[in-house]
């Protein structure tokens, strides 16, 4: 199973732990990632100010994967939604597609409409399957209690995602966790946003949104938090100290990317999973799991 790996801007610059663990877990499961150097930003950060520019960037990325006859596996939820939404629009709006292809032709490229885009976690569910994931487990997670944050763009807007999972009652990420032997913890506001996109216009509101969730995760007694997007990670992991200070809370909740948790269950070590790169210290966690 071959996929072009779409990293976007944030992951290679500040979430190497996500990239490392995703690559390690994928290779254990027989997924082959092809790197396309020419990929740029997905376009998402431009969507609010220059929608057409965002569509152009996304379309060019789609065209690059098409040239290699590969589907796209994306690790970032925002990239996944931007690329999927653009393909959705271009496949339905002839006029928009002609306009986009006119611009792409100046670079010697074209969007044809053959490429498929899916998030890494969705590929795990749909192509690898829970059974195979379960069979890859070699380390006991000892009842590790995990609070999952689905985030927004992994499942929304639902009209672009072909009925994958249910944004009103999502299950897929927890199914994967269950397969690797973790215990899923429910908490208030589970479906809510991380607040990340507001960071650039109002930092205080963004931290309030993230802080409310972290508080409920703590109250529910979770050992760690699980997520699948580097923007969410920025809010819950990198900004956790700031949130503790703002609300006068003691949280100390390690925040792991899904493949870091899967990788722990597969018997991989701290370095292979980039656990030393997480902001909230993960040493107590791995000591408890005897990693």
């Amino acid at each position, binding site marked *: 199973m071959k996929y072009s790996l779409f*990293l976007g*801007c*944030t992951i*290679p*610059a*500040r979430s*190497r732990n996500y*990239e*490392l663990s995703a*690559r390690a877990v994928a290779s254990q499961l027989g997924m082959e990632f092809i*790197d396309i*150097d*020419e*990929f*740029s*930003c997905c376009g998402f*950060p*431009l*969507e*609010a*100010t*220059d*929608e*057409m*520019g965002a569509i*152009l*960037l996304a379309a*060019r990325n789609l065209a690059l994967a098409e040239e290699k006859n590969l589907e796209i596996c994306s690790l970032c939820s925002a990239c996944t939604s931007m690329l999927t939404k653009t393909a959705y*629009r271009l496949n339905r*709006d002839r006029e*928009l597609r002609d306009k986009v292809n006119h*611009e*792409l032709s100046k*670079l010697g490229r074209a969007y044809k409409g053959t490429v498929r885009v899916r998030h890494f976690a969705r590929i795990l569910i749909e192509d690898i399957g829970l059974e195979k994931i379960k069979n890859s487990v070699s380390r006991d997670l000892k009842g590790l209690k995990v609070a999952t944050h689905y985030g*927004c*763009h992994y499942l*929304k*807007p*639902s009209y672009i995602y072909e009925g994958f999972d249910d*944004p*009103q009652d999502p299950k897929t990420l927890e199914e994967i966790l269950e397969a690797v032997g973790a215990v899923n913890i429910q908490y208030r*506001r589970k*479906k*809510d*946003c991380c*607040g*990340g*996109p*507001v*960071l*650039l*216009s*109002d930092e205080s*509101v*963004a931290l*309030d*949104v993230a802080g*409310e969730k972290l508080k409920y995760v703590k109250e529910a007694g979770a050992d760690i938090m699980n997520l699948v997007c580097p923007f969410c990670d920025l809010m819950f992991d990198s900004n956790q100290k700031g949130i503790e200070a703002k609300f006068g809370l003691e949280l100390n909740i390690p925040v792991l990317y899904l493949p870091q948790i899967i990788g722990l269950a597969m018997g991989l070590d701290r370095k292979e999973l*980039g656990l030393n790169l997480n902001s909230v210290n993960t040493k107590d966690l791995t000591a408890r799991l005897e990693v």
Partner: protein
Amino acid sequence: MNRIVSEDYDPDFIEELDSSEITGAFSGCLACRTCTSGCPVHRANNEYDPLRIMRMLTFGLKDELIGGDMIWLCSDCYTCQENCPMGIKVTDIINHLKNMATSAKHTPIGVSTQEKLLKDQGKIYIIDDFDNKKRTKAGLPPLPEINEEAKKLLEKR
């Protein structure tokens, strides 16, 4: 009882958005407040209110909407859009309003700075030699510093 008459009413604005391919129609809005009741930003700051945005739209208050700070507080989470009983693309509409505000040069400084970076580099973060050394050391493939072709694609935009 007096009729509500607004001097700021802009019918072209309503027509433009209501017939837009991107946003879809909004004129079926019931004012039921479902959008606001699930909005995480509203909970953090009740000055922010998607129903208010929808009402302002219905009344055609273009200048107030795109000249103000409110729309920029939307976190693009799609909760309102998924919940709306009328299937109105509330989030896509607010995003489109941000684009209109940008055309009218009303963009928060943080957002416009990021836009400029992206147009200069083809990506948000430069991957410099230092980053690539760290990547190589971790066993990850090196990446180009910026993306020239993407930069070219966005030129003159």
